[in-house]
C-alpha cells in the first residue's frame, strides 16, 4: 500500500529551523572567549504565566512548588536548575526550560496552578515559538550591549539575577544576566532575530579585532 515517492517533488521538511539558525556559522566565526562570543540557544520551552493580582500568593506558592523555585521579585529571575522563572511585569512571568517541551511545560504548570479546576488562579500559555534565545558572553559583552541599549548595565545596577524587558537597537528584548562572565541572555522575538543577530555581529566587530 506504500505510495510511490515521486523523486521530482521535494520531501516535506521535517527538521526544525531556529530563527537565527542560518547565522550560526557567522556567529561561531566572530569573537573569542577572551573578548565576546554570540550564539543562539534554540528551541527552549517558554511558557507565559499571568496571575491575577488577588491570586498572586496562591499562584506563587503552587507555581513555586512545581518549578522548584519561588516566583521572582520585580526585575529579577529565579531558578537554580533547569526552569528559570523571569519577572516580566506585575503578575506576568515567563518560565524558560531547556529540558522540556513547551506543550509539556505548559500542561504541567497549568495543572500545578489550577489543579482539576482548570487554571483557576493563573493563565498559562505556551509561547515557545514567540522568542528565541541568544547568549552573549565574554568580558566585552557589556560594551557590545551598550552600543544599543539605554539601560544602565553597570554591575552596581544590573547583575546576575536581574531580568528586564527593554529596547536593544530598537528591538524589544528580554535581557537576563546569568553570571559575572558576564553572560547575557537576550530573548528576542523570532521575526527580529535575524536583524538583532546581524546588528550584534556588527557591534561586536570593534571588540573582537586583533590588535
Amino acid at each position, binding site marked *: 500500500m506504500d505510495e510511490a515517492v515521486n523523486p521530482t517533488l521535494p520531501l516535506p521538511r521535517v527538521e526544525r529551523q531556529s530563527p537565527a539558525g542560518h547565522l550560526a556559522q557567522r556567529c561561531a566565526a566572530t569573537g573569542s572567549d577572551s573578548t565576546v562570543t554570540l550564539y543562539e540557544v534554540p528551541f527552549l520551552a517558554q511558557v507565559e504565566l499571568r496571575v491575577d493580582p488577588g491570586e498572586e500568593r496562591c499562584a506563587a506558592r503552587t507555581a513555586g512548588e512545581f518549578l522548584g523555585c519561588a516566583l521572582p521579585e520585580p*526585575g529579577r529571575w529565579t531558578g537554580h536548575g533547569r526552569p528559570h522563572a523571569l519577572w516580566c*511585569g506585575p503578575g*506576568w512571568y515567563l518560565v524558560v526550560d531547556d529540558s522540556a517541551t513547551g506543550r509539556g511545560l505548559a500542561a504541567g504548570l497549568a495543572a500545578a496552578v489550577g489543579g482539576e479546576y482548570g487554571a483557576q488562579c493563573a493563565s498559562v500559555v505556551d509561547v515557545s515559538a514567540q522568542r528565541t534565545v541568544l547568549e552573549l558572553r565574554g568580558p566585552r559583552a557589556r560594551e557590545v550591549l551598550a552600543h544599543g541599549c539605554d539601560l544602565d548595565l553597570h554591575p552596581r545596577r544590573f547583575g546576575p539575577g536581574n531580568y528586564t*524587558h*527593554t*529596547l536593544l537597537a*530598537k528591538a524589544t528584548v528580554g535581557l537576563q544576566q546569568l553570571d559575572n562572565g558576564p553572560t547575557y541572555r537576550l530573548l528576542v522575538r523570532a521575526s527580529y532575530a535575524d536583524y538583532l543577530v546581524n546588528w550584534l555581529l556588527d557591534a561586536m566587530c570593534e571588540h573582537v579585532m586583533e590588535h
Partner: protein
Amino acid sequence: MLLIPCPWCGPRDEAEFRYGGQARVAYPEDPWALDDTAWAEYLFVRDNPEGWFAERWFHTAGCRRWCDVMRDTATNRVAGSAPTGASLTEVTK
C-alpha cells in the same frame, strides 16, 4: 530625551514608552445625563497647562503597564510616578 520613572521597572528612556495624554480624567457618573456638548468635552477636551501636568504613559517595551507621571511641561522635569489610580506626588502649582 525624558527619563521616565516606571513604578515597576525604574527609570527608563522615553523611547520605551507610549504617551497616553492627561491622567485622571474621571468617567462621568451618569453618562446618560450628559448632553452632546458635555460628552464631547469628556471625550476630547484635555488640559494643556504650562507647568505641572499629570499624564499617562504606557511602558510598551517593558512591563506593559500604564502609569501616571507628574511632569512639568515647560522644563520636562519629572516629579514622580505611580501606578494608575494610586496617589501621585502633588506639586505646588
